[in-house]
């Protein structure tokens, strides 16, 4: 697709060997993210998929610095944002990178009017010269996400789930970010509303050229929105590549089981299909021993040499 031109382009976000550990007690550490590396180019969508507990949300939160990464390097727009943040770094992070959360009701302050929720970033970073300009900006953004300007004076509880998620998107968009981290932002919505929100996100990307880190467990939606995909399991990035590469030629057995587990809305086919099963404990794999192997184009898989030879033959 757009890969060839991307090779020459400068990536917007580079994550190198990111590790995020949480100390649960004196002698037990949860290794949520184990040496994950990937790149996001300007204007593209990178989908992170994996089951719950695989560390996909943790990666998003480490990048936007809701957590302090244990080790690894994160470069955002030519600036190192993984160590101690200076004033410039903080400012850049807080304006150029935004996040959309899963549950729109829990992430919007119920005591604030929607206009003030959306305008909060503008207020903090003094992005306007007059009250009029602020209100105009808020109105514009509301229209852009498919709401009406008069909605600015309402409270979150007066909206439906899909509308609330639009408010969440508006709040992220108003800062004109270069990267939006969408953490399971459609999982809590109804099917018909999911499609509306995903279409909106695609339209906005085309218009503003913002990049998305799209975190989800629903592979069919991820396939639809992403240019490239990373598959996570137990904190390891097992396989990454363009959407076509992953879906046409999944190499890692975990990716294959994940793809085969998606139910197909086609009764005659689905009734006879048996999902490939995969269990890390009995598979005999050790993710810690794996290294990155090149498959094709931008398709990489993490495994040992022997495993790679075996899987390549099968594929």
């Amino acid at each position: 697709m757009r890969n060839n031109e991307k090779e020459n382009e400068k990536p917007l976000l580079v994550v190198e060997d990111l590790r995020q550990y949480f100390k649960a007690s004196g002698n037990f550490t949860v290794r949520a993210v184990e040496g994950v590396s990937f790149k996001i180019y300007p204007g593209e969508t990178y989908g992170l998929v994996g089951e719950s507990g695989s560390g996909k949300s943790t990666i998003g939160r480490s990048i936007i610095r809701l957590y302090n990464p244990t080790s690894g390097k994160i470069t955002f727009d030519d600036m190192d944002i993984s160590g101690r943040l200076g004033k410039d770094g903080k400012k850049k992070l807080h304006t150029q990178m935004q996040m959309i959360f899963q549950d729109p009701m829990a992430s919007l302050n119920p005591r604030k009017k929607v206009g003030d929720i959306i305008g909060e970033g503008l207020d903090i970073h003094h992005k306007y010269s007059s009250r009029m300009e602020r209100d105009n900006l808020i109105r514009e953004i509301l229209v852009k996400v498919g709401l009406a300007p008069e909605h600015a004076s309402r409270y979150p509880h007066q909206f439906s789930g899909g509308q609330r998620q639009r408010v969440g998107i508006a709040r992220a968009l108003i800062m004109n970010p270069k990267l939006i981290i969408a953490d399971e932002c459609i999982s809590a919505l109804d099917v018909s509303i999911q499609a509306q929100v995903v279409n909106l996100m695609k339209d906005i990307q085309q218009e503003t050229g913002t990049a998305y880190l799209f975190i989800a467990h629903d592979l069919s939606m991820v396939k639809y929105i992403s240019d490239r995909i990373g598959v996570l399991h137990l904190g390891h990035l097992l396989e990454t590549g363009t959407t076509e590469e992953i879906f046409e030629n999944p190499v890692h057995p975990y990716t294959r089981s994940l793809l085969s587990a998606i139910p197909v809305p086609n009764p005659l086919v689905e009734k006879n299909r048996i999902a490939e099963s995969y269990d890390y404990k009995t598979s005999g794999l050790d993710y810690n021993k794996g290294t990155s192997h090149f498959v094709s184009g931008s398709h990489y898989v993490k495994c040992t040499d022997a495993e790679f030879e075996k899987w390549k033959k099968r594929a």
Partner: protein
Amino acid sequence: MAKEKEQILKIRDLDISFQAAAGNVHAIRGVNIDLYKGETVAIVGESGSGKSVTMKAAMGILASNAVVNQGSIEFSYHHEDGTPETVDILTKDKRWIRNHINGKRIAMVFQDPMTSLDPTMTIGKQIMEGMIWHFKTPKKEAWKRAVGLLEEVGIEDAEKRMKHYPHQLSGGMRQRVVIAIALACNPDLLICDEPTTALDVTIQAKIIELIKRVQKERGISVIYITHDLGVVAKVADYVNVMYAGKIVEKGTINEIFYDPRHPYTWGLLSAMPDLETEDERLYTIPGSPPNLLKEKEGDAFAPRNCFALAIDDKAEPPMFQITETHFAATWLLDERAPKAEMPAELSARIARMKKEAKVHEE
């Protein structure tokens, strides 16, 4: 053939409203559902369409502010000595239902296993609870049967797991325990209310296969409440599509997926991104589900329906019969209606689905 089948559940003209502070919410507006022994019926719809309320009514566990305006829910079962009996659940009081129906003959699996399990009780105790309560099973025997159930639902080290608390299990295992509890009293009917929505795809596949296997082995009937059409395709024999408290289309699984007639079903099928979709945009149903606080004249789906006719604003469409098993409530099927075709993308997709299905049959 159809007459030989033994009917388990027969819901007729069910009409329920809730008295809320803001007014009367008319949640169920004339629902008919039939279920035969050993079969699986799926109820599909968005949140707020009334699918859970219908099933809660069948279990007699409606919220206290619910008012049943009319209708009947006839449930047929056999006594221990084999004599058949049919009761209208709506006419029975809570206590009778608790003693004779809940858990014993109709069991329910809820969406979130963490909230449906008691965090202060070991899972062994929770599985045995129903048997001891309903059948006065001796404790030792109940324990043995509970271990057997845990093995049946695919939990290893069942003996050891009996003493564990819910928080010691993973999400998928918890849902397996909930299924074991539901099966403990050998019910005739299992109601699964979004049993896999809170789970990952890989675990979802395993749980669905488990429910299918159990159903086959025990010959019980299953009602599946879900909004995931992929899951429906896997499990269901019959599908009921619900919208705003009404069933708008019902039919066999193949009729609904390969020959849908209602514009809402078209929308639902199109909005689901299948893995072969190459289009740049997903089809969406415009607008959002209606507010049931306000009674609307005519078809509730009309404001979101790009195929809506003038009559849709005045009168509610009746159920039009298409085949012996296939019904749809849309004025488009009236002989006076102008001819309306399903969206081109959808018909292309259905053609592709049929082609794939053929490949599989050969």
